[in-house]
């Protein structure tokens, strides 16, 4: 019998708006089905129905979800509860909030066995240890009995996987199990998940947004868009013969990076010569942005924490520098210090050769407008009560544009620069998509006519395809306006192909910097290699190689 068969499933929101349209799928024993799509495509909603679960606000319209022939959506709550945790297990997206903060991890991992009386306490205890070992978690009873906030993010996610596998379920539903983690940790957790699923032989549904990652684990792929299945097939079929244009676009984005990185090694030598003839060396003009030995401390006295120590960089007009690092690496701190929002404890920032005051409010108006910063979340950086016209207009007014007509004209021009229709001037943030809001966010920075634009993770909250288009826009702005761009990101793959220079930060220290081709083509520091090897590549077997490489690099780094 087919393990799971979803037939013509239609779900809608309470408002009646469809969430899933006529979705069907089958899952057989031993299959690992990946659901791929942008946010809002319905992939998580679909995956959760395999547990007979619909989140509040979701309604069943028609269709069936048959697990071993029984319709989960028509089952009593009791009957469902008997299946959950035992036959149907779940791995949540963010382990940080999906574990009860006040219960020891081991108790939570083995809870299913107590709910369903599947094993004796001793057997459950032994089984948990077996899974912990499979998932490569540190050993020791004291460690297993920690509370969720006492272990690292990667370890917590592995405990989550252990919880899902503990009862040896028939189906394991994984909702983006790596997306909340740092890039380097993602590889290791993905590897643990892969090992765990294979060791237990369970069938799995894997929800993911990074197609290159999920193909490492999955056997089959289902591509979704706006609640509909766009394409389905085995991993080989989808990877090598994608039929639907949307699938092709998803794949292309990755090919772009892979191809770029392939040529990087070749051009590594050429890059050094290219750097030698960069504009700053040809003329005596000072660089557009120069940062010398910048350091930032948070707190005072004995409690001071060094967030950034001794960062230096130069950036010219028409250049883009990527600043890459994981959370806590000090990259955002650096961005804020350059913008004058955070007071550095030492170091200088020079724009066009002129020393900038450390506090942005002490900078004279022309210097204040020279450096602009755009933040990650368009939702919090745009005032949701203001229209686009008001948001942009206020900046123009502030920097001295008195004429209403000229302001209106400049707003039109700005909207055009970020490729938004002119009638968006009357829209409020709630009437725009995430990508559009981020464009307005950029337009506001451009309204000041900056020389240097700092982009702080502006694409990380966006879906891949949208993020790619925003990156294209940045690239275009850099060329057309001849401004210098400092692009802060945790995602190496996002910026590698587009930046001219790159700086790698780790724990507040600059690990490596130089022309992108050189740094990524022949990384000298093991941490750069670790980051480089964490970018998923669209080929089978990458995960094996990457995790092997990771192990040796982690040893080298002593972490």
């Amino acid at each position: 019998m087919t393990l799971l068969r979803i037939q013509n499933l239609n779900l809608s929101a309470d408002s009646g708006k469809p969430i899933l349209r006529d979705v069907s799928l089958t899952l057989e024993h031993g299959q690992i089905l990946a659901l791929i799509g942008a946010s809002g495509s319905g992939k998580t909603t679909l995956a959760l129905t395999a547990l007979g679960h619909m989140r509040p606000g979701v309604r069943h319209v028609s269709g069936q979800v048959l697990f071993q022939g029984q319709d989960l959506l028509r089952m009593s709550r009791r009957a469902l509860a008997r299946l959950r945790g035992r036959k149907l297990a779940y791995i949540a997206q963010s382990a940080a909030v999906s574990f009860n903060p006040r219960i020891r991890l081991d108790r939570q991992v083995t809870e299913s066995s107590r709910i369903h009386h599947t094993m004796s306490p001793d057997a459950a205890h032994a089984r948990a240890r077996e899974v912990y070992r499979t998932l490569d978690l540190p050993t020791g009873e004291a460690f297993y009995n920690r509370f969720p906030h006492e272990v690292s993010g990667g370890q917590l996610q592995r405990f989550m996987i252990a919880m899902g596998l503990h009862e040896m379920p028939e189906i394991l539903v994984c909702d983006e199990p790596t997306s909340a983690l740092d890039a380097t940790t993602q590889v290791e957790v993905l590897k643990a998940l892969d090992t765990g699923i294979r060791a237990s032989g369970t069938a799995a549904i894997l929800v993911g947004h990074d197609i290159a990652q999920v193909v490492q684990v999955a056997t089959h792929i289902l591509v979704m868009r706006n609640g509909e299945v766009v394409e389905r097939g085995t991993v080989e079929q989808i990877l090598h013969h994608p039929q639907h244009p949307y699938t092709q676009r998803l794949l292309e984005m990755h090919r772009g990076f892979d191809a770029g990185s392939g040529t990087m090694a070749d051009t590594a030598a050429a890059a050094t010569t290219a750097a030698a003839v960069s504009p700053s060396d040809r003329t005596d003009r000072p660089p557009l942005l120069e940062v010398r030995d910048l350091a930032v401390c948070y707190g005072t006295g004995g409690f001071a924490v060094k967030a950034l120590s001794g960062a230096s960089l130069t950036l010219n007009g028409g250049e883009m520098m990527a600043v890459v690092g994981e959370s806590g690496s000090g990259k955002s701190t650096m961005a804020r210090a350059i913008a004058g929002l955070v007071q550095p404890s030492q170091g200088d920032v020079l724009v066009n050769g002129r020393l900038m005051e450390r506090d942005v409010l002490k900078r004279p108006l022309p210097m204040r407008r020279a450096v602009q910063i755009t933040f990650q979340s368009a939702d919090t950086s745009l005032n949701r009560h203001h229209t686009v016209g008001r948001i942009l207009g206020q900046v123009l007014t502030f920097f001295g544009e008195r004429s209403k007509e000229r302001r209106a004209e400049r707003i039109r021009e700005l909207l055009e620069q970020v490729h938004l229709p002119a009638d968006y001037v009357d829209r409020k943030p709630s009437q725009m998509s995430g990508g559009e809001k981020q464009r307005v966010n950029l337009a506001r920075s451009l309204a000041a006519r900056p020389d240097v634009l700092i982009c702080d993770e502006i694409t990380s909250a966006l879906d891949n395809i949208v993020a790619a288009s925003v990156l294209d826009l940045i690239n275009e702005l850099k060329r057309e306006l001849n401004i210098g761009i400092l692009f802060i990101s945790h995602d190496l793959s996002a910026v590698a192909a587009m930046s001219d220079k790159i700086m790698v930060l780790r724990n507040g220290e600059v690990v490596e910097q130089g022309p992108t081709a050189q740094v990524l083509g022949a990384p000298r520091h093991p941490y750069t290699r670790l980051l480089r090897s964490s970018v998923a590549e669209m080929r089978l077997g990458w995960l094996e190689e990457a995790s092997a490489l990771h192990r040796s690099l982690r040893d080298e780094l002593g972490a």
Partner: protein
Amino acid sequence: MIRFIVKRLAAGFVLLLVISLLIFVGCEMLPGDVAQIMLGQSASPENVAALRAELGLDQPAPVRYLAWLWGIFQGDWGVSMTSRQPVSVMLSERLSNTLTLAGLTTLVSVPLALLIGMVLAVHKGTRLDRVGTIVIVGLCATPEFLVATLGVLVFSIHLRWLPAISYVTPGSGVLTLIKSMLLPLATMTIIVTAQLARMTRAVVGNILTQPYVETARLKGAGSVRVITVHALRNAIGPLINIIAMNVAYLISGVVIVETIFAFPGLARLMADSVQARDLPVVQACAMIFSAAYIGLIMVADIVAKLFDSRKESGASS
């Protein structure tokens, strides 16, 4: 942890001192001479002067403040201006009546409210929840004197089950005592239960939307297990806080309820003394109520912190 408790106790004590100062200074601003007021306009200057000396009113204000404070520590609250009795004598009997009323209200309403709040939270969005919530919101917004007057009208006047006025005399039997306390108790219980249940519903309802509750349900945990094993653990801190807030609220409720039912409690003594402008009694009552209020909030802070001590204790295990 001990440092926190000591700090919190010290802060509470300082706050109480500040309040005692405010009460004292406030009463100092009363226009006119206290001795003159006590003896009336016709009193001879000699008598007034004698009373002033007797009451220590000829001393400078700071000295009187310290003497008053020192008296409180020794259980000496001064002498009532109207009855000329020691205030402590007037307080003792009233205080125990009020404490009985407040204690019984707490005993009944806290478990009841927690139960109602949790049941509504678990059934959020259902008809039961909607009806229950409307009833609770309605009762929360209802003044004590509506509940009380309706209670009197129904149970004392029409049904004649209970006395409208609580004549509690030392010699009366247990049954009379219970009967006379029933209406004030019911009034307070209804209001406190409604408020506490409303807050409990909000707190527990919020916890039930947390992702870890979804995780637990997807492990097959039923509602009872979700509440007892997962939700309650995280709700205890906030719940203790709101329980303390509501018990503290009893203080203001008790003033009205005691007056309506002529219940011989501390609050009514205070209200009567305010009308008579009997300042020593007002001061004493205000101090006792403020101390109770501050004490409750302080205990709630400390207990909530105890339940939230996982950050310190967990790491070592």
